[in-house]
């Protein structure tokens, strides 16, 4: 048990800081419109790629740095300390492009991977549909073979970043007469191909981060197929494995800011910081959010020893999303009727807590709902049996 950097880690941290200091003028922030932020982030991504700080764990042949998971975390920690958001490229570089590297042809990889690493091209993930969310294998978007092409029609939904993406990873049903999981095939598609129609979705939080994507007889060449015909489910699982490892990042207002706020929030004769119920709730929040962070260190330790991360890596988002929601509510509620004000002048922390409160329901659903995550823990970690699956082995066309 040792929290301090090893000599190698300390050296890497110093190198990261020297790089970040030297490029301070180009560090992106959360301010500005989406196109402005995107432009800054693209530029920053290219600077990082040139210096070996983009895709740190990837092999050098794909534009990575051949580094360790620990190095990636160290760099990200130092970057985050300077307020650099983790935005725009996460889905592409975390999920889509690794899938391309595993399944695409050599020429395709030559063409697609480096521009993605440099932020020149952005990827999105087109999996969920109106009738297939938690039960992802229930997708209905059709792909029908026509010569060397496939003709794709259907609707995807909750597609983060589709509106600024260049490429998408799309899962389709190529054989409706096979059972649910068997008749699926994965492709990559240009988001500018004729017949791709992206429409933004207005979220309950007020933001517009994701979209509906309609496929109106979009032609995709067979050369853009990833994996076998009918092998799409395995490709999707490969892509999503990366998503769970990413989940569970720190969210919300840090502990020291909550404490400072509590000391300045009048309650009764004193402040919120004197209130027993609040102090107890804070303690529980602290233990659980800190526990997720510490669990991530255990995962990293396993990885740096060359072991596969244990199942404990799966608890992150399940815990942090709920805790974010409840702590935000507690803080807003403690303001009294003043808590009803949601703006960036009067509301605490420039309105961040109100934003978190309205955003948290989405985090509890995206990337595996709380309920699906509990099922995964119960089935894959504890080994409990699956429930009845009435559609198992039944041709998809005959299921409900």
């Amino acid at each position, binding site marked *: *048990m*040792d929290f301090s950097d090893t000599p190698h880690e300390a050296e890497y941290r110093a190198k990261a800081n020297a790089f970040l200091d030297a490029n301070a003028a180009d560090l992106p922030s959360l301010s500005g419109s989406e196109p402005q932020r995107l432009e800054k982030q693209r530029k920053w991504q290219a600077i990082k790629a040139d210096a070996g700080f983009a895709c740190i764990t990837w092999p050098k042949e794909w534009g990575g740095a051949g580094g360790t998971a620990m190095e990636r975390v160290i760099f990200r920690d130092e970057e985050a300390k300077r307020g650099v958001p983790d935005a725009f490229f996460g889905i592409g570089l975390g999920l889509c492009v690794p899938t391309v590297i595993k399944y695409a042809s050599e020429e395709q990889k030559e063409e697609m991977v480096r521009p993605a690493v440099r932020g020149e091209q952005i990827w999105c993930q087109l999996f969920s549909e109106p009738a297939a969310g938690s039960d992802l294998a229930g997708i209905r978007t059709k792909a029908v073979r026509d010569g060397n092409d496939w003709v794709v029609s259907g609707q995807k939904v909750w597609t983060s970043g589709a509106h600024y993406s260049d490429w998408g990873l799309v899962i389709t049903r190529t054989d409706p007469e096979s059972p649910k999981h068997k008749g699926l095939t994965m492709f990559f598609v240009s988001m500018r191909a004729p017949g791709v129609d992206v429409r933004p979705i207005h979220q309950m939080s007020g933001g517009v981060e994701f979209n509906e994507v309609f496929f109106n007889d979009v032609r995709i060449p067979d050369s853009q197929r990833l994996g076998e015909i009918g092998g799409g489910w395995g490709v999707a699982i490969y892509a999503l494995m990366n998503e769970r490892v990413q989940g569970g990042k720190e969210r919300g207002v840090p502990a020291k800011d909550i404490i400072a706020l509590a000391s300045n929030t009048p309650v009764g004769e004193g402040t919120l910081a004197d209130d027993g119920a609040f*102090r107890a709730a*804070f303690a*529980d929040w602290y*233990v659980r959010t800190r*526990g997720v962070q510490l669990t991530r260190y255990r995962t990293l330790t396993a990885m740096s020893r060359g072991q596969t991360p244990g199942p404990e890596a799966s608890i992150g988002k399940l815990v942090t999303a709920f805790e974010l929601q409840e702590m935000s509510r507690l803080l807003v509620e403690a303001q009294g009727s003043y808590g009803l004000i949601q703006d960036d002048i009067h509301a605490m922390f420039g309105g961040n807590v109100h934003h978190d409160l309205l955003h948290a329901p989405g985090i509890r659903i995206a990337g595996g709902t709380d309920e699906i995550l*509990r099922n995964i823990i119960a089935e894959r970690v504890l*080994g409990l049996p699956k429930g009845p699956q009435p559609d198992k082995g039944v041709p998809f066309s005959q299921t409900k």
Partner: protein
Amino acid sequence: MNFDFNEDQEMLRSEARKFLEARCPASKVRAVVEDSGKGYDTELWQELVEQGWTALAIPEEFGGLGMSRTDLCVLAEELGRALAPVPFASTVYLLAEALKIAGTPQQKEKLAQIASGECIGCLAISEGPGEASRDRTEARFEDGRLNGTKHPVIDAMAATDALVLAKDAQGKASLYLVALDQSGVSRSALETIDPSRDLGRIVFENAIAEPIGDHTLLDRLLDGAAVLLAFEQVGGADRSLELATDFAKERFAFGRAIGSYQAIKHKLADAYVNNQIARSNAYYGIWALDAGSRELPTAAAAARVAGCHAFWYAARESIQAHGGIGFTWEADQHLFYRRALQLDIAVGSARQWQERLYSAVEAQTMEAG
């Protein structure tokens, strides 16, 4: 950074687990619970002493093995898992630690007796209903003599020596070391919700006592014990969850295993999450304890709050998952339930430690400016 046990510690764990599986099955715990005259399992205690468990983290110069507290917490987790009915925590996490931290050279000689199993400790701070408090302590120390009544005291009947909280002539509360085998001390056993550990009342009438450490020792001692007990809680919580999971796979209702129903799945998944949260906080706690970090008060309180929550939830819901059979005397579930409650209260309740955690984070924040 290296946030896990090393190979030697994993080997220590596997040896400890094998030993306890062979020598401390649930039937041994039950035997102590069912025999009101038995405060602890003397045979098991002797075996643990022979294996060097009480000597593990005592420096070699005092007859110990000179290993670290991180090594010790490996044993703590296994003892918790096995619900070992022995006064290990009172002796090793409390008395031995107090001697190591604050003992005079003469007092430290007692460490050799702990290593050899002749000395058993207890922490006597409570004086009746409510949480133990330095301010409200009525026990008095004057001219080398201690007067007062402490109850309840865990392992009071088994102990040879007590750490007693008392006020001096100036009204300042701190700890005193008192040998229990003297005419000024009388003890009586109390019935307890977890009879796998003994509980008693100790009356001191002009008992010979000597100060140990200053007024800061108690908090430091409780922080350390909170961390080590958190490992016992993690061990007990993991075992409770395993038993519930095994049962949920085998028990059928409405034509399928009850573990295939989400109501059971989600309950057990929540227990798994709690246990991981508790384990990670406990790791942080033991790092802070062993490294002598200034973050110890925060880390210890977090480990304790998470440990209390995890063991209580797992023990409680393990009975629920077992249904009626889990409510019977013959099933082992109540042994875990009782121990979870005992550990919940042992060095102050979760409520008290939530309070300590807030104060510790607040202090840390102020220190950082």
